[in-house]
């Protein structure tokens, strides 16, 4: 099945109007993105499996009010076509298993259960994977294992004092630079202190001239936006 064919079938399975061509693939790494409901995942997995896609990764994300599973499908032959499908879970944290379709989902789902407490229905062996079998917490949930107080103090210290240190540093740098420039070998100084090369490259491109580049994340990831208001 071609990439276009997959996309048209997928359009019927995802939450309406949520399917996007991955904006800014160079930076974000996704070709197609969409949002799905838990009911659709089995059909989608079957679709991708039939088309020769592999299940690259399942990431469980805790958004504090709810949890999400992010499914990544990619094709290993030919040009990469990485699909990212986000699935918001309801309060019961239940999701149907796709381990009967993808072998790799077996451990991915167990990991999601282990780390985030996602209840995968129909999984043949939904038990702790990395943690001891008798552990009673889900470590990657945001309310777990992070001492909020400590975090806040740390953040305060960090914002104030690191900034101060950086300022001091910049001052010292400026002085050494002046000293270096003064000590004669100006040509040398220019080579060592030259600004980063102008040529922008794929891996780290920040096309500053393009106003689109800085904006799209807001549109593409509404969830994160929500997180921002926290």
């Amino acid at each position, binding site marked *: 099945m071609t990439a276009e064919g997959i996309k048209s079938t997928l359009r019927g399975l995802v939450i309406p109007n949520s399917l996007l061509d991955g904006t800014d693939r160079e930076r974000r*790494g996704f070709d197609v993105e969409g949002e799905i409901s838990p009911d659709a995942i089995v059909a989608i997995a079957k679709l991708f499996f039939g088309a020769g896609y592999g299940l690259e*990764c399942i990431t469980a994300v805790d958004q504090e009010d709810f949890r999400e599973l992010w499914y990544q499908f990619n094709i*290993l032959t030919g040009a990469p076509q990485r699909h990212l499908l986000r699935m918001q879970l309801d309060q019961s944290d239940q999701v149907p298993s796709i381990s009967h379709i993808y*072998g*790799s989902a077996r451990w991915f789902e167990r990991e999601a259960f282990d780390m985030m407490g996602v209840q995968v229905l129909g999984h043949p*062996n939904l038990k702790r994977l990395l943690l001891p079998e008798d552990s009673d917490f889900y470590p990657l949930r945001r309310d777990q294992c992070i001492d909020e107080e400590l975090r806040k103090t740390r953040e305060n210290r960090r914002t104030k004092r690191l900034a101060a240190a950086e300022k001091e540093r910049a001052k010292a740098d400026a002085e050494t630079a002046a000293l270096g420039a003064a000590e004669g070998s100006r040509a040398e100084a220019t080579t060592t202190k030259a600004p*980063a090369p102008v040529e922008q490259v794929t891996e780290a*491109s920040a096309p500053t001239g393009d106003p689109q580049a800085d904006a799209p994340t807001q549109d593409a990831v509404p969830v994160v936006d929500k*997180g921002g208001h*926290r």
Partner: protein
Amino acid sequence: MSGPSRKLAAYAEHPRTPEFAELRFGNLEPHLIEAPDDGTYYLNMGPHHPSTHGVLRLVLRLDGEKVIDCEPVIGYSHRAHEKMAERGLYSQFLPNPSRMDYLGGMIYNVGYCQAVEQAFGISVPDRARWIRTMVSEFNRISSHLLWFGAFIMDLGGFTPFLLAFQDRENILDLLDSVTGSRLTYCYANFGGVTLDLPDDFAGRAKALIETQRTHFETYKKLVTDNTIFRSRTDGIGIITPEQVHSYAMTGPCARASGVDYDVRRAEPYSIYSELDFEVPTRTEGDCLARYLVRFEEMEQSLRIIEQCLERMPSGPIGPDRPLIRVKTKPGSYYFTCESPRGQLGWFLLADKNPEPWRLHARTPSFCNLSAMIEVLKGTMIADTIAILGSIDVVMPEIDR
């Protein structure tokens, strides 16, 4: 009754709670927990075993020497790296990636930096990218060399292990003179690398490549052509392309089964699109194929390093001051690179805070090992070891 023996008696009389079986077999598949009554028995291979490569536990159900069923139990070296990422700055996670996969530490370190750079648009000078690629390829060779030695050792040959270690040691010496570390690198930082190449680097690297090539010839004669080695690996542990597809296997394991996928070519990152190298593939999918693919990969890496040495541009190696706090942009990002064991993916969910909201590492061995269950059934104990060795798992990378 004296002290110790009384203790023993107390142990024997210890009431076995109903949960005992559950506890003993831990996270196993249900069919493995039932006690067998057909003459088969369980063998707990690991977590302390000479050839489980770290702390992997394989619960094998055996009929004589034949493996009927197998279940890997993992998590013994789980250190919650992903949680650690959430509690610190992006830069404070820098020392962690190389601890995930201690054999491909440089590639993990560079990969994480590139993930952050790609996400937040930090530019990297040319020279830094070439240096990163070169040290990554050196790291790939050193990882494969250790795998080569350990694999032969799993098969009972001891000498190639130490010969491979000597070669690896030479590479580590070289990397040491560049990065300052030998195993867990923290060399790359956001926007470049921390140290420049030493003056005598090119000469040393070229000499090393030459000796390495002659040593590969020796290994070919000593190991690859050895009839016992052949009989132990030829046709053992065949992974079909369908299994590769279903289990999302990547790296040399997938390429040995005829799945021609290499991130360096499929999604060229850094400077790989400018380099001339081949992606070795084989179709048999057995241990020997995986062995040969890795061997060829080492030779290709040597080629890449030669090109890097030739074309190494001059210029700055990064920002004047290491970037400690990066300007974040909210969004979800995925960056993938080729680790010695397959596709390494960094999934990054950022908000406007200076810490990552969620960082998830898609580690290749995780998928590769989960496919083991299917491959192991019906083999013998000795083959189990051979297959496990040929898949080349690094446990801390799986457990994270």
